[in-house]
């Protein structure tokens, strides 16, 4: 089953990467993990939304659907 890394944006959300955990190459997976880490460094926080898990995570998981949410502040 395909997994994805998405981030919330003015478009609703943007797909940063999609991969199949069974077939993705280690090099591509490293790239995706780097994207994940780069977004976290920008202040995004990550959630594992696979099958209704809906938990916040700090580490990249190649077997999860990940959603990156921008930093929030009081409005």
């Amino acid at each position: 089953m395909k997994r994805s890394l998405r981030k919330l944006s003015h478009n609703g959300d943007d797909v940063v990467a999609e991969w199949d955990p069974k077939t993705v190459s280690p090099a591509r997976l490293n790239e995706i993990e780097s994207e994940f880490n780069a977004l976290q460094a920008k202040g995004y926080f990550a959630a594992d939304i696979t099958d209704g898990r809906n938990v916040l995570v700090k580490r990249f998981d190649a077997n999860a659907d990940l959603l990156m949410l921008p930093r929030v502040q009081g409005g």
Partner: protein
Amino acid sequence: VKATDESQEVRRSRQLLEHILPFAARQEFEDSVTITVRGQRGTTYRIAPYAQTEMIEPDGRRFGWACLQSTVPVPCYDRMIAEYLLLRNDESRYLTTANLFVCQNDHLGLVNLFLFAFDIALAVNLILQCLWNR
């Protein structure tokens, strides 16, 4: 808001929210366009797309509102996603990040009661003066 009135990005964010929500919450969202999250401290939060989040006591009394926004411009349903995930996972962080507005209902109630009593006193005084002058 009718689905046909939505822009593409708003529709996309609504679909993502519906995808994330568990069945019961999705049903509530479809019926009322709100999501209710029960916090670990007993507070219930009602998240809406175009209003601040209501904070409700266990006895059902609304005691305030929370206002949270994204630092990046996103459609309203994306903000609901962020609030939902934060409340489910880290209520403390939510409460320290959001601006909280606590109701002053008791205070306003006393003020209103005082004004009402003052109005009654003025009316009685007016009636008495009219009777006195006759």
